[in-house]
């Protein structure tokens, strides 16, 4: 147990009584509190996570349609249920009673497997997300989290890398051209942005000293990591949009070129599985963003100061869900605002912008962290790495950018000169064309004064 205390800050926030309880239970556990849960509690939690994800999916679909509708001066769905809230449920039920069309050329076993491979990892990723602190369920104290491992965040990472299989295999198994192209694009896109996502989490582990999700949340009791690690947060936020194939990075299902992307040939419930997986993934990355950067289930600043009970009992679930919904709102906002990127621009952003910035940022943060650990004063520990980054990275990068811009400007001038000398091949009016003054077209001559008509003169004779 003492090892746990030293390793993570988890124990700092646990009340003394529960620490004692943990010592009693801690015969063979990996992370405090998840060793000996009774089976019935585990079953309740499993069911809870499952229901939460399905409900969040139904909610997110309606929410997205409503919000996008408002952003486009429409009302959005408003027919099914109060204010249209049951629209997604009705759509889901409807899908079950639709005919399933399987293309003749499809590879049947893989075609069946792909939707399952898409949906299952999406559910599993949520198993390590903490919903709240320790609560009492029917008199049994237990953390509001399905389970935790010392490498909890890696579970989410592994699930997101397994999700690529559903995409690749569905496109391949359909035996059709557009889905195959869409799936290849989607897979290349997901793995490219997974790199940026993985790198952006390094700084969080550096600060928290643990990879367990509950430990990371506990370490953010005072400061949310979004403040010291804003660069990591920004990169994480950008890369998960690419990772979940959402607008403006939804090139895999670019309607104008690839129809529906990898799931074009899927219908009925199989299609519903892909839809479910997409929205669950969106909820999962939002929950992980909350956990890693936004303080997890901790109440926002100010709330805790006014009301001391905000961080105990079942209330943290409210903050957790509110944060997730806020992030989903941003997802929807992006979709309502930004046009889709071109594929080469998208890959350029992922490989040439996010990754180098990320690596330099990690180096700087690590250096600052280690120097401060060694007892350097804060300003010195921060200033020296920053100066190094400025000197070795930012200045050369700026010089290179400026050089490229100057070259481009010179090229443009050359081109413009060449253009000026060129005789136009397309019929264009001569440069010295004199436009005759349009005397005949004055209003007076075209429309005779109304008085003239009133006098009975028929203009047509």
């Amino acid at each position, binding site marked *: 147990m003492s090892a746990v205390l030293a390793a993570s800050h988890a124990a700092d926030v646990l009340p003394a009584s529960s620490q004692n309880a943990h010592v009693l239970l801690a015969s063979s556990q990996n992370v405090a509190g998840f060793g000996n849960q009774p089976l019935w509690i585990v079953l309740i939690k499993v069911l809870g996570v499952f229901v939460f994800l399905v409900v969040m999916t139904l909610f997110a679909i309606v929410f997205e349609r409503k919000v996008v509708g408002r952003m486009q001066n429409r009302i959005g769905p408003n027919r099914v249920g109060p204010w249209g809230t049951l629209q997604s449920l009705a759509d889901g039920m409807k899908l079950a009673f639709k005919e399933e069309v399987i293309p003749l050329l499809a590879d049947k076993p893989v075609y069946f497997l792909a939707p399952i491979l898409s949906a*299952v990892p999406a559910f599993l990723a949520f198993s390590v997300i903490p919903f709240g602190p320790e609560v009492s369920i029917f008199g049994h104290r237990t953390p509001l989290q399905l389970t935790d491992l010392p490498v909890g965040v890696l579970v989410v990472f592994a699930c997101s890398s397994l999700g690529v299989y559903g995409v690749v295999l569905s496109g391949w198994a359909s*035996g059709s051209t557009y889905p195959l192209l869409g799936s290849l694009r989607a897979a290349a896109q997901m793995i490219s942005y997974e790199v940026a996502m993985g790198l952006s989490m390094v700084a969080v582990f550096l600060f928290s000293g643990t990879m367990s999700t509950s430990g990371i949340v506990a370490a953010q009791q005072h400061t949310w990591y979004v403040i010291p690690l804003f660069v990591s947060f920004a990169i994480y936020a950008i890369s998960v949009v690419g990772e979940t194939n959402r607008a403006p990075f939804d090139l895999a299902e670019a309607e104008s070129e690839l129809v529906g992307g990898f799931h074009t040939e899927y219908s009925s419930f199989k299609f519903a599985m892909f839809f479910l997986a997409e929205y669950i993934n969106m909820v999962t990355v939002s929950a992980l963003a909350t956990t890693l950067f936004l303080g997890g289930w901790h109440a926002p600043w100010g709330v805790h100061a006014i009301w001391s009970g905000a961080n105990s009992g079942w209330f943290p679930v409210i903050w957790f869900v509110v944060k997730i919904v806020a992030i989903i709102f941003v997802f929807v906002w992006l979709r309502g605002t930004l046009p889709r990127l071109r594929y080469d621009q998208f890959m350029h952003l992922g490989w040439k912008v996010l990754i180098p910035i990320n690596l330099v940022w990690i180096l700087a943060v690590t250096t600052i962290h280690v120097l401060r650990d060694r007892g350097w004063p804060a300003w010195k520990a921060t200033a020296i790495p920053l100066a190094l980054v400025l000197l070795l990275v930012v200045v050369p990068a700026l010089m290179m950018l400026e050089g490229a811009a100057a070259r481009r400007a010179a090229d443009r001038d050359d081109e413009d000169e060449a253009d000026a000398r060129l005789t136009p091949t397309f019929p264009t009016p001569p440069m010295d064309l004199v436009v005759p003054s349009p005397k005949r077209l004055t209003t007076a001559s075209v429309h005779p004064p109304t008085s003239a008509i009133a006098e009975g003169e028929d203009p047509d004779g």
Partner: protein
Amino acid sequence: MLAPYLPIVLLFGLAFAFAFFSVAIAPFTGPRRYNKAKLEFYECGIEPTPQPQGPNRFPIKYFLTAMLFIVFDIEIIFLYPYAVANKALGLFGLVEIVIFIVTVFVAYAYVWRRGGLDWD
């Protein structure tokens, strides 16, 4: 010892059962109206063009992307334990990891310079 994994296994069971049931039940709940044209693959209404067979169907570019992804994935995997244990490793660990990142960065710079990151 395996207790922390038990909930994951149970959730896997539930999710798998749900997904499998949904996928398996679909042919029975929906109608079936045979139509030969429906079973062709979808190409916006025109007669589907037969898919080209054999190699060279996809840009080899994707292979390069996947390979670079592996390189960076492994780098990330090495960075994680360092990040977790960096307190204990101190200045020596910092020097190590800087050397490691810079070395991998050389590969990255090489690929960039040769145009491997340009997507046409």
